[in-house]
Protein backbone atom coordinates (compact mmCIF):
# COMPACT_ATOMS: atom_id res chain seq x y z
CA UNK A 1 0.00 0.00 0.00
CA UNK A 2 1.68 3.17 -1.16
CA UNK A 3 1.37 6.53 0.50
CA UNK A 4 -0.94 7.74 -2.31
CA UNK A 5 -3.40 4.97 -1.44
CA UNK A 6 -3.25 6.02 2.18
CA UNK A 7 -4.04 9.59 1.20
CA UNK A 8 -7.05 8.54 -0.85
CA UNK A 9 -8.23 6.22 1.96
CA UNK A 10 -7.69 8.45 4.96
CA UNK A 11 -7.30 11.98 3.55
CA UNK A 12 -10.90 12.92 4.31
CA UNK A 13 -11.44 10.33 7.04
CA UNK A 14 -12.15 13.02 9.63
CA UNK A 15 -15.24 14.02 7.61
CA UNK A 16 -16.40 10.43 7.30
CA UNK A 17 -15.26 9.74 3.71
CA UNK A 18 -12.95 6.94 2.68
CA UNK A 19 -11.98 3.96 4.80
CA UNK A 20 -14.51 3.24 7.56
CA UNK A 21 -12.16 1.71 10.13
CA UNK A 22 -9.09 3.43 11.51
CA UNK A 23 -5.81 1.55 11.02
CA UNK A 24 -5.39 -1.14 13.69
CA UNK A 25 -1.84 -2.29 12.95
CA UNK A 26 1.10 -1.34 10.79
CA UNK A 27 1.14 2.29 11.87
CA UNK A 28 3.41 3.75 9.21
CA UNK A 29 4.59 7.34 9.39
CA UNK A 30 2.57 8.02 6.24
CA UNK A 31 -0.67 6.86 7.88
CA UNK A 32 0.00 8.99 10.94
CA UNK A 33 0.80 12.09 8.90
CA UNK A 34 -2.25 11.68 6.65
CA UNK A 35 -4.75 10.93 9.39
CA UNK A 36 -3.54 13.68 11.72
CA UNK A 37 -3.58 16.05 8.74
CA UNK A 38 -7.11 14.95 7.99
CA UNK A 39 -8.05 15.90 11.53
CA UNK A 40 -6.63 19.39 10.96
CA UNK A 41 -9.67 20.07 8.74
CA UNK A 42 -11.74 20.25 11.92
CA UNK A 43 -9.29 22.54 13.69
CA UNK A 44 -9.24 24.91 10.73
CA UNK A 45 -13.05 24.81 10.47
CA UNK A 46 -13.63 25.49 14.19
CA UNK A 47 -11.07 28.28 14.29
CA UNK A 48 -12.13 30.02 11.09
CA UNK A 49 -15.87 30.04 11.75
CA UNK A 50 -15.49 31.11 15.38
CA UNK A 51 -13.01 33.82 14.46
CA UNK A 52 -15.08 35.31 11.62
CA UNK A 53 -18.33 35.30 13.59
CA UNK A 54 -16.62 36.30 16.85
CA UNK A 55 -15.07 39.38 15.28
CA UNK A 56 -18.42 41.17 14.89
CA UNK A 57 -19.67 40.29 18.35
CA UNK A 58 -16.32 41.38 19.77
CA UNK A 59 -16.49 44.81 18.15
CA UNK A 60 -20.05 45.25 19.40
CA UNK A 61 -19.14 44.13 22.92
CA UNK A 62 -16.06 46.37 23.02
CA UNK A 63 -18.13 49.41 22.04
CA UNK A 64 -20.79 48.40 24.59
CA UNK A 65 -18.16 48.14 27.33
CA UNK A 66 -17.00 51.64 26.52
CA UNK A 67 -20.56 52.95 26.75
CA UNK A 68 -21.45 55.44 29.49
CA UNK A 69 -24.86 53.83 29.97
CA UNK A 70 -24.59 51.15 32.69
CA UNK A 71 -27.50 49.19 31.15
CA UNK A 72 -25.33 48.57 28.10
CA UNK A 73 -21.94 48.51 29.84
CA UNK A 74 -22.70 46.04 32.63
CA UNK A 75 -23.88 43.13 30.44
CA UNK A 76 -20.79 43.54 28.24
CA UNK A 77 -18.51 43.55 31.29
CA UNK A 78 -20.16 40.42 32.67
CA UNK A 79 -20.03 38.64 29.34
CA UNK A 80 -16.29 39.31 29.09
CA UNK A 81 -15.66 38.34 32.72
CA UNK A 82 -17.57 35.05 32.52
CA UNK A 83 -15.82 33.84 29.38
CA UNK A 84 -12.35 35.11 30.26
CA UNK A 85 -12.53 34.18 33.94
CA UNK A 86 -13.35 30.50 33.58
CA UNK A 87 -11.54 27.66 31.82
CA UNK A 88 -12.63 26.94 28.26
CA UNK A 89 -12.52 23.27 29.18
CA UNK A 90 -15.26 23.75 31.77
CA UNK A 91 -17.22 25.97 29.37
CA UNK A 92 -17.24 23.15 26.83
CA UNK A 93 -18.45 20.65 29.41
CA UNK A 94 -21.13 22.96 30.74
CA UNK A 95 -22.34 23.91 27.26
CA UNK A 96 -22.48 20.32 26.11
CA UNK A 97 -24.54 19.14 29.07
CA UNK A 98 -26.73 22.24 28.84
CA UNK A 99 -27.32 21.43 25.16
CA UNK A 100 -28.15 17.83 26.10
CA UNK A 101 -30.75 19.06 28.60
CA UNK A 102 -32.09 21.47 26.01
CA UNK A 103 -32.38 18.64 23.52
CA UNK A 104 -34.52 16.77 26.06
CA UNK A 105 -36.87 19.74 26.34
CA UNK A 106 -36.89 20.85 22.69
CA UNK A 107 -35.97 17.96 20.34
CA UNK A 108 -35.70 20.37 17.38
CA UNK A 109 -32.48 21.78 18.93
CA UNK A 110 -30.77 18.36 18.84
CA UNK A 111 -28.10 19.61 16.42
CA UNK A 112 -26.50 21.63 19.20
CA UNK A 113 -25.04 18.53 20.83
CA UNK A 114 -22.94 17.84 17.72
CA UNK A 115 -19.45 19.29 17.76
CA UNK A 116 -19.76 21.03 14.39
CA UNK A 117 -22.43 23.37 15.77
CA UNK A 118 -22.28 23.25 19.57
CA UNK A 119 -18.51 23.57 19.91
CA UNK A 120 -18.46 26.36 17.35
CA UNK A 121 -20.98 28.31 19.43
CA UNK A 122 -18.83 27.97 22.55
CA UNK A 123 -15.64 28.92 20.69
CA UNK A 124 -17.47 31.84 19.05
CA UNK A 125 -18.61 33.26 22.40
CA UNK A 126 -15.20 32.60 23.97
CA UNK A 127 -13.16 34.29 21.27
CA UNK A 128 -15.66 37.15 21.16
CA UNK A 129 -15.05 37.80 24.86
CA UNK A 130 -11.24 37.65 24.58
CA UNK A 131 -11.21 39.80 21.44
CA UNK A 132 -13.67 42.26 22.95
CA UNK A 133 -11.22 42.90 25.78
CA UNK A 134 -8.45 43.50 23.23
CA UNK A 135 -10.64 45.85 21.17
CA UNK A 136 -11.79 47.65 24.29
CA UNK A 137 -8.16 48.25 25.26
CA UNK A 138 -7.49 49.64 21.78
CA UNK A 139 -10.61 51.79 21.91
CA UNK A 140 -9.39 53.31 25.16
CA UNK A 141 -5.98 54.13 23.68
CA UNK A 142 -7.19 55.94 20.55
CA UNK A 143 -5.34 59.27 20.50
CA UNK A 144 -7.51 62.08 21.82
CA UNK A 145 -6.43 64.26 18.89
CA UNK A 146 -8.02 61.89 16.36
CA UNK A 147 -11.42 62.24 18.00
CA UNK A 148 -10.99 66.02 18.30
CA UNK A 149 -10.08 66.25 14.63
CA UNK A 150 -13.24 64.30 13.77
CA UNK A 151 -15.26 66.69 15.92
CA UNK A 152 -13.64 69.65 14.15
CA UNK A 153 -14.79 68.23 10.81
CA UNK A 154 -18.30 67.94 12.21
CA UNK A 155 -18.33 64.15 12.21
CA UNK A 156 -20.50 62.51 14.84
CA UNK A 157 -22.08 59.19 15.67
CA UNK A 158 -21.92 56.42 13.10
CA UNK A 159 -19.91 58.42 10.58
CA UNK A 160 -17.21 59.22 13.12
CA UNK A 161 -17.11 55.60 14.28
CA UNK A 162 -16.85 54.21 10.78
CA UNK A 163 -14.25 56.67 9.49
CA UNK A 164 -12.10 57.45 12.52
CA UNK A 165 -12.70 55.32 15.61
CA UNK A 166 -13.04 51.89 14.01
CA UNK A 167 -9.98 51.99 11.71
CA UNK A 168 -7.75 53.31 14.49
CA UNK A 169 -9.12 50.76 16.94
CA UNK A 170 -8.36 47.94 14.49
CA UNK A 171 -4.88 49.27 13.80
CA UNK A 172 -4.02 49.44 17.49
CA UNK A 173 -5.60 46.10 18.35
CA UNK A 174 -4.31 44.09 15.39
CA UNK A 175 -1.01 42.76 16.83
CA UNK A 176 -2.80 41.45 19.95
CA UNK A 177 -5.67 40.19 17.85
CA UNK A 178 -3.22 38.12 15.80
CA UNK A 179 -2.09 36.43 18.99
CA UNK A 180 -5.70 35.82 19.93
CA UNK A 181 -6.31 34.15 16.55
CA UNK A 182 -3.34 31.80 16.97
CA UNK A 183 -4.45 31.13 20.50
CA UNK A 184 -7.95 30.27 19.29
CA UNK A 185 -6.68 27.77 16.75
CA UNK A 186 -4.74 26.08 19.51
CA UNK A 187 -7.83 26.04 21.70
CA UNK A 188 -9.77 24.12 19.05
CA UNK A 189 -7.84 21.00 20.12
CA UNK A 190 -9.88 20.97 23.32
CA UNK A 191 -13.17 20.25 21.55
CA UNK A 192 -13.01 16.47 21.37
CA UNK A 193 -11.32 16.20 24.74
CA UNK A 194 -14.14 17.92 26.58
CA UNK A 195 -17.83 17.16 26.52
CA UNK A 196 -18.36 16.91 22.79
CA UNK A 197 -18.13 13.29 21.61
CA UNK A 198 -16.77 12.39 18.20
CA UNK A 199 -19.14 10.37 16.04
CA UNK A 200 -17.78 7.43 14.06
CA UNK A 201 -14.21 8.31 15.08
CA UNK A 202 -14.35 11.55 13.14
CA UNK A 203 -12.14 13.79 15.20
CA UNK A 204 -9.64 16.60 15.04
CA UNK A 205 -5.85 16.40 14.74
CA UNK A 206 -5.24 15.86 18.45
CA UNK A 207 -7.88 13.13 18.52
CA UNK A 208 -5.95 11.11 15.94
CA UNK A 209 -2.54 11.94 17.45
CA UNK A 210 -3.83 10.66 20.77
CA UNK A 211 -5.23 7.57 19.03
CA UNK A 212 -1.82 6.72 17.60
CA UNK A 213 -0.02 7.45 20.86
CA UNK A 214 -2.41 5.11 22.68
CA UNK A 215 -2.10 2.34 20.10
CA UNK A 216 1.68 2.45 19.66
CA UNK A 217 2.68 3.47 23.21
CA UNK A 218 5.02 5.84 21.43
CA UNK A 219 4.24 9.54 21.86
CA UNK A 220 7.43 10.54 20.04
CA UNK A 221 5.97 10.20 16.54
CA UNK A 222 2.34 11.43 16.51
CA UNK A 223 2.77 14.48 18.78
CA UNK A 224 5.72 15.97 16.87
CA UNK A 225 3.66 15.47 13.66
CA UNK A 226 0.80 17.35 15.32
CA UNK A 227 3.25 20.03 16.44
CA UNK A 228 4.51 20.47 12.85
CA UNK A 229 0.96 20.88 11.55
CA UNK A 230 0.21 23.51 14.15
CA UNK A 231 3.42 25.40 13.50
CA UNK A 232 2.48 25.51 9.80
CA UNK A 233 -1.05 26.66 10.68
CA UNK A 234 0.39 29.32 12.99
CA UNK A 235 2.66 30.58 10.21
CA UNK A 236 -0.29 30.79 7.79
CA UNK A 237 -2.32 32.76 10.34
CA UNK A 238 0.62 35.11 10.91
CA UNK A 239 0.95 35.55 7.14
CA UNK A 240 -2.71 36.42 6.57
CA UNK A 241 -2.92 38.70 9.60
CA UNK A 242 0.34 40.32 8.55
CA UNK A 243 -1.22 41.32 5.21
CA UNK A 244 -4.18 42.88 7.00
CA UNK A 245 -1.79 44.62 9.37
CA UNK A 246 0.16 46.08 6.46
CA UNK A 247 -3.07 47.42 4.96
CA UNK A 248 -4.24 48.92 8.26
CA UNK A 249 -0.89 50.71 8.63
CA UNK A 250 -0.41 51.75 5.00
CA UNK A 251 -0.92 55.49 5.65
CA UNK A 252 1.74 55.66 8.36
CA UNK A 253 5.47 56.35 7.96
CA UNK A 254 7.54 53.16 8.19
CA UNK A 255 8.84 53.59 11.71
CA UNK A 256 5.43 54.38 13.22
CA UNK A 257 3.82 51.20 11.97
CA UNK A 258 2.55 48.69 14.48
CA UNK A 259 4.62 45.55 14.24
CA UNK A 260 3.25 42.07 14.68
CA UNK A 261 4.92 40.74 17.76
CA UNK A 262 4.37 37.15 18.67
CA UNK A 263 3.67 36.71 22.31
CA UNK A 264 3.03 33.70 24.50
CA UNK A 265 0.27 31.41 23.51
CA UNK A 266 -1.27 30.09 26.65
CA UNK A 267 -4.07 27.83 27.65
CA UNK A 268 -7.40 29.48 28.17
Amino acid at each position, binding site marked *: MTCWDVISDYGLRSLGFGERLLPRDDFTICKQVVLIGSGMIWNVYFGTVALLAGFFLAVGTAVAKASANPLIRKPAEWFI*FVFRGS*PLFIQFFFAYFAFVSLKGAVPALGGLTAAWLGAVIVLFLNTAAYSAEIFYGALMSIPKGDIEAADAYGMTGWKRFRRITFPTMMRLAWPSYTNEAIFLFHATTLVFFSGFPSRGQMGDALYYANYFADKTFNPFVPYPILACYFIILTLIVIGIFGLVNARLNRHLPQQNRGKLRLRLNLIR
Partner: protein
Amino acid sequence: MGATIFSYCSDPSTIEGLKWLSCYLTTGKHISMYWSFGTVLLLLAITAPTALAFGFAGATAARSRIAPVSWIGKGYTAIVRGVPDIAFFLFFVIALDQLFEWIRHEVKCPDWTDPIRQGNDFVVCTEAKLPLGNAAAWVHDTYAFFLAVLTFSIVFGAFAANVLTGAMRAVPRAQIETGEAYGMTERQTFWRIMVPQMWVYALPGLSNLWMVLIKATPLLFLLGIEDIVYWARDLGATKTPKFTDYPHGDWRMWYFLALLVFYLCFTKLSEIVLDRINRRLTLGQATAAGEAQRKAAA
Protein backbone atom coordinates in the same frame (compact mmCIF):
# COMPACT_ATOMS: atom_id res chain seq x y z
CA MET B 1 -25.59 3.40 53.22
CA GLY B 2 -22.45 4.53 54.99
CA ALA B 3 -22.03 7.02 57.77
CA THR B 4 -24.12 10.17 57.49
CA ILE B 5 -23.42 13.62 58.84
CA PHE B 6 -27.00 14.45 59.77
CA SER B 7 -28.96 11.91 61.79
CA TYR B 8 -32.13 12.40 59.71
CA CYS B 9 -30.34 11.16 56.62
CA SER B 10 -30.61 7.49 57.57
CA ASP B 11 -33.64 6.99 55.32
CA PRO B 12 -33.41 9.40 52.34
CA SER B 13 -36.61 8.13 50.68
CA THR B 14 -38.76 9.72 53.37
CA ILE B 15 -37.33 13.24 53.28
CA GLU B 16 -37.86 16.02 50.76
CA GLY B 17 -36.80 19.50 49.70
CA LEU B 18 -33.91 21.24 51.39
CA LYS B 19 -33.53 18.46 53.91
CA TRP B 20 -33.08 15.95 51.08
CA LEU B 21 -30.59 18.26 49.41
CA SER B 22 -28.57 18.66 52.61
CA CYS B 23 -28.35 14.88 52.89
CA TYR B 24 -27.60 14.47 49.20
CA LEU B 25 -24.76 16.97 49.28
CA THR B 26 -23.08 15.28 52.25
CA THR B 27 -22.87 11.73 50.94
CA GLY B 28 -19.48 10.04 50.99
CA LYS B 29 -18.95 10.63 47.28
CA HIS B 30 -19.73 14.32 47.60
CA ILE B 31 -17.20 14.61 50.41
CA SER B 32 -14.67 13.03 48.03
CA MET B 33 -15.59 15.68 45.47
CA TYR B 34 -14.99 18.47 48.00
CA TRP B 35 -11.58 16.95 48.71
CA SER B 36 -10.79 17.06 45.01
CA PHE B 37 -11.06 20.86 45.18
CA GLY B 38 -8.20 20.46 47.64
CA THR B 39 -6.31 18.48 44.97
CA VAL B 40 -6.67 21.43 42.60
CA LEU B 41 -5.45 23.89 45.23
CA LEU B 42 -2.58 21.56 46.15
CA LEU B 43 -1.59 21.34 42.49
CA LEU B 44 -1.55 25.14 42.27
CA ALA B 45 0.40 25.43 45.52
CA ILE B 46 3.10 23.02 44.34
CA THR B 47 3.19 23.96 40.66
CA ALA B 48 3.45 27.74 41.03
CA PRO B 49 6.79 27.78 42.92
CA THR B 50 8.19 24.81 40.94
CA ALA B 51 7.33 26.42 37.61
CA LEU B 52 8.86 29.68 38.83
CA ALA B 53 12.06 27.81 39.69
CA PHE B 54 12.08 26.11 36.26
CA GLY B 55 11.43 29.47 34.66
CA PHE B 56 14.23 31.13 36.59
CA ALA B 57 16.61 28.36 35.60
CA GLY B 58 15.49 28.65 31.96
CA ALA B 59 15.84 32.44 31.89
CA THR B 60 19.27 32.29 33.51
CA ALA B 61 20.38 29.59 31.08
CA ALA B 62 19.16 31.64 28.11
CA ARG B 63 21.39 34.53 29.27
CA SER B 64 24.43 32.32 29.67
CA ARG B 65 27.56 33.13 27.70
CA ILE B 66 28.30 29.44 27.15
CA ALA B 67 26.56 28.74 23.83
CA PRO B 68 25.16 25.22 24.47
CA VAL B 69 23.65 26.30 27.82
CA SER B 70 22.08 29.33 26.20
CA TRP B 71 20.68 27.13 23.41
CA ILE B 72 19.07 24.86 25.96
CA GLY B 73 17.49 27.85 27.72
CA LYS B 74 16.27 29.43 24.50
CA GLY B 75 15.10 26.12 23.07
CA TYR B 76 13.14 25.40 26.23
CA THR B 77 11.19 28.65 26.00
CA ALA B 78 10.75 28.46 22.23
CA ILE B 79 9.52 24.89 21.96
CA VAL B 80 6.41 25.32 24.06
CA ARG B 81 5.25 28.20 21.88
CA GLY B 82 3.54 27.53 18.59
CA VAL B 83 2.08 24.22 19.68
CA PRO B 84 -1.21 23.68 21.55
CA ASP B 85 -0.45 23.16 25.20
CA ILE B 86 -2.90 20.33 25.60
CA ALA B 87 -0.73 18.32 23.22
CA PHE B 88 2.20 18.92 25.56
CA PHE B 89 0.18 17.72 28.50
CA LEU B 90 -0.70 14.50 26.75
CA PHE B 91 2.85 14.09 25.42
CA PHE B 92 4.86 14.78 28.58
CA VAL B 93 2.92 12.43 30.80
CA ILE B 94 3.67 9.40 28.61
CA ALA B 95 7.18 10.58 27.77
CA LEU B 96 8.17 11.27 31.39
CA ASP B 97 6.67 8.00 32.56
CA GLN B 98 8.66 6.08 29.94
CA LEU B 99 11.81 8.05 30.74
CA PHE B 100 11.63 7.17 34.45
CA GLU B 101 10.90 3.52 33.72
CA TRP B 102 13.74 3.37 31.22
CA ILE B 103 16.25 4.85 33.71
CA ARG B 104 15.16 2.41 36.40
CA HIS B 105 15.30 -0.38 33.86
CA GLU B 106 18.90 0.45 32.95
CA VAL B 107 19.89 0.62 36.63
CA LYS B 108 17.97 -2.33 38.03
CA CYS B 109 18.10 -4.88 35.23
CA PRO B 110 21.45 -4.56 33.45
CA ASP B 111 21.23 -8.18 32.28
CA TRP B 112 18.05 -7.63 30.30
CA THR B 113 18.77 -8.16 26.61
CA ASP B 114 15.37 -7.73 24.94
CA PRO B 115 14.77 -4.38 23.29
CA ILE B 116 12.55 -1.93 25.19
CA ARG B 117 10.41 -1.11 22.17
CA GLN B 118 8.99 -4.40 20.90
CA GLY B 119 6.91 -3.36 17.96
CA ASN B 120 4.13 -1.27 19.42
CA ASP B 121 4.86 -2.15 23.05
CA PHE B 122 7.03 -0.48 25.62
CA VAL B 123 8.46 -3.24 27.82
CA VAL B 124 10.65 -2.87 30.90
CA CYS B 125 11.49 -5.52 33.50
CA THR B 126 9.06 -6.03 36.38
CA GLU B 127 11.34 -4.43 38.98
CA ALA B 128 11.54 -1.24 36.94
CA LYS B 129 7.78 -0.71 36.61
CA LEU B 130 6.55 2.56 38.07
CA PRO B 131 4.79 2.25 40.38
CA LEU B 132 5.50 -1.42 41.16
CA GLY B 133 2.70 -3.75 40.13
CA ASN B 134 1.96 -4.74 43.71
CA ALA B 135 1.96 -1.17 45.09
CA ALA B 136 -1.02 0.17 47.00
CA ALA B 137 -3.66 2.24 45.24
CA TRP B 138 -2.53 5.46 46.93
CA VAL B 139 0.97 5.00 45.51
CA HIS B 140 -0.51 4.86 42.02
CA ASP B 141 -2.56 7.98 42.74
CA THR B 142 0.42 9.85 44.14
CA TYR B 143 2.63 8.87 41.23
CA ALA B 144 -0.02 10.07 38.75
CA PHE B 145 -0.33 13.33 40.67
CA PHE B 146 3.46 13.71 40.75
CA LEU B 147 3.64 13.27 36.96
CA ALA B 148 0.88 15.84 36.55
CA VAL B 149 2.69 18.37 38.74
CA LEU B 150 5.94 17.81 36.84
CA THR B 151 4.18 18.25 33.49
CA PHE B 152 2.47 21.44 34.61
CA SER B 153 5.78 22.73 35.98
CA ILE B 154 7.66 22.05 32.76
CA VAL B 155 5.04 23.72 30.55
CA PHE B 156 4.47 26.70 32.83
CA GLY B 157 8.18 26.91 33.58
CA ALA B 158 8.72 27.67 29.89
CA PHE B 159 6.18 30.50 30.01
CA ALA B 160 7.68 31.82 33.25
CA ALA B 161 11.16 31.68 31.68
CA ASN B 162 9.87 33.91 28.91
CA VAL B 163 8.41 36.44 31.34
CA LEU B 164 11.56 36.44 33.50
CA THR B 165 13.87 36.88 30.50
CA GLY B 166 11.92 40.00 29.57
CA ALA B 167 11.99 41.24 33.16
CA MET B 168 15.77 40.77 33.41
CA ARG B 169 16.20 42.80 30.25
CA ALA B 170 13.92 45.52 31.61
CA VAL B 171 16.14 46.26 34.61
CA PRO B 172 17.93 49.49 33.60
CA ARG B 173 21.44 48.82 32.35
CA ALA B 174 22.75 51.73 34.44
CA GLN B 175 21.89 49.80 37.61
CA ILE B 176 24.16 46.93 36.60
CA GLU B 177 26.89 49.35 35.58
CA THR B 178 26.71 51.03 38.98
CA GLY B 179 27.20 47.62 40.59
CA GLU B 180 30.20 46.99 38.36
CA ALA B 181 31.61 50.42 39.25
CA TYR B 182 31.54 49.35 42.89
CA GLY B 183 33.71 46.39 41.95
CA MET B 184 31.05 43.70 42.10
CA THR B 185 31.63 40.54 40.12
CA GLU B 186 29.16 39.44 37.47
CA ARG B 187 27.63 36.93 39.88
CA GLN B 188 27.23 39.61 42.54
CA THR B 189 25.56 42.13 40.23
CA PHE B 190 23.20 39.38 39.08
CA TRP B 191 22.10 38.31 42.56
CA ARG B 192 22.29 41.65 44.37
CA ILE B 193 21.16 44.13 41.71
CA MET B 194 19.23 42.42 38.95
CA VAL B 195 17.27 39.72 40.76
CA PRO B 196 15.80 41.98 43.47
CA GLN B 197 14.72 44.56 40.90
CA MET B 198 13.31 42.37 38.17
CA TRP B 199 10.17 41.32 40.05
CA VAL B 200 8.41 44.65 39.48
CA TYR B 201 8.78 44.16 35.75
CA ALA B 202 7.90 40.48 35.93
CA LEU B 203 4.75 40.88 38.00
CA PRO B 204 2.26 41.73 35.21
CA GLY B 205 3.42 38.74 33.20
CA LEU B 206 3.48 36.45 36.21
CA SER B 207 -0.02 37.49 37.32
CA ASN B 208 -1.27 36.74 33.85
CA LEU B 209 0.45 33.37 34.08
CA TRP B 210 -1.18 32.65 37.43
CA MET B 211 -4.62 33.33 35.93
CA VAL B 212 -3.81 30.99 33.08
CA LEU B 213 -2.54 28.36 35.50
CA ILE B 214 -5.84 28.48 37.38
CA LYS B 215 -7.67 28.00 34.13
CA ALA B 216 -5.40 25.10 33.15
CA THR B 217 -6.19 23.02 36.25
CA PRO B 218 -9.18 21.18 34.69
CA LEU B 219 -6.67 19.55 32.34
CA LEU B 220 -5.77 17.37 35.34
CA PHE B 221 -8.75 15.34 34.26
CA LEU B 222 -7.00 14.45 31.01
CA LEU B 223 -4.00 13.22 32.97
CA GLY B 224 -6.15 10.63 34.69
CA ILE B 225 -6.46 12.32 38.09
CA GLU B 226 -9.75 12.07 39.98
CA ASP B 227 -10.23 15.83 39.96
CA ILE B 228 -13.32 18.01 40.11
CA VAL B 229 -14.19 17.38 36.46
CA TYR B 230 -14.11 13.64 37.08
CA TRP B 231 -16.41 13.94 40.10
CA ALA B 232 -18.78 16.35 38.36
CA ARG B 233 -19.24 13.88 35.53
CA ASP B 234 -19.52 10.97 37.92
CA LEU B 235 -21.95 12.48 40.41
CA GLY B 236 -24.00 14.41 37.88
CA ALA B 237 -24.82 11.42 35.69
CA THR B 238 -28.30 9.93 35.88
CA LYS B 239 -28.75 7.76 38.97
CA THR B 240 -31.40 5.08 39.20
CA PRO B 241 -32.97 3.98 42.51
CA LYS B 242 -31.38 0.56 42.08
CA PHE B 243 -27.85 1.77 42.82
CA THR B 244 -28.31 4.78 45.07
CA ASP B 245 -30.52 6.15 47.80
CA TYR B 246 -30.63 9.49 46.02
CA PRO B 247 -31.94 8.85 42.49
CA HIS B 248 -31.92 11.82 40.11
CA GLY B 249 -31.83 12.63 36.41
CA ASP B 250 -28.93 14.01 34.40
CA TRP B 251 -27.62 16.82 36.60
CA ARG B 252 -24.18 17.20 35.02
CA MET B 253 -25.15 20.61 33.69
CA TRP B 254 -25.67 21.88 37.25
CA TYR B 255 -22.45 20.33 38.50
CA PHE B 256 -20.49 22.03 35.74
CA LEU B 257 -22.31 25.27 36.45
CA ALA B 258 -21.04 24.96 40.03
CA LEU B 259 -17.49 24.43 38.74
CA LEU B 260 -17.86 27.45 36.47
CA VAL B 261 -18.90 29.57 39.45
CA PHE B 262 -16.00 28.17 41.51
CA TYR B 263 -13.49 29.21 38.85
CA LEU B 264 -15.06 32.64 38.40
CA CYS B 265 -14.88 33.29 42.15
CA PHE B 266 -11.30 32.06 42.28
CA THR B 267 -10.32 34.30 39.36
CA LYS B 268 -12.01 37.32 40.94
CA LEU B 269 -10.26 36.68 44.26
CA SER B 270 -6.88 36.34 42.52
CA GLU B 271 -7.50 39.56 40.61
CA ILE B 272 -8.10 41.45 43.85
CA VAL B 273 -5.04 39.99 45.59
CA LEU B 274 -2.71 40.50 42.60
CA ASP B 275 -3.95 44.05 42.23
CA ARG B 276 -2.95 44.72 45.85
CA ILE B 277 0.50 43.18 45.38
CA ASN B 278 1.00 45.22 42.25
CA ARG B 279 0.07 48.43 44.04
CA ARG B 280 2.50 47.61 46.83
CA LEU B 281 5.32 46.86 44.39
CA THR B 282 4.81 50.00 42.28
CA LEU B 283 5.01 52.17 45.38
CA GLY B 284 7.96 54.51 44.97
CA GLN B 285 8.95 53.14 41.55
CA ALA B 286 10.03 55.52 38.83
CA THR B 287 7.28 54.36 36.47
CA ALA B 288 4.08 55.99 35.23
CA ALA B 289 2.01 53.95 37.71
CA GLY B 290 4.32 54.85 40.57
CA GLU B 291 4.12 58.53 39.62
CA ALA B 292 0.32 58.36 39.52
CA GLN B 293 0.31 56.89 43.05
CA ARG B 294 2.57 59.67 44.28
CA LYS B 295 0.34 62.34 42.78
CA ALA B 296 -2.80 60.77 44.24
CA ALA B 297 -1.23 60.74 47.70
CA ALA B 298 0.02 64.33 47.46
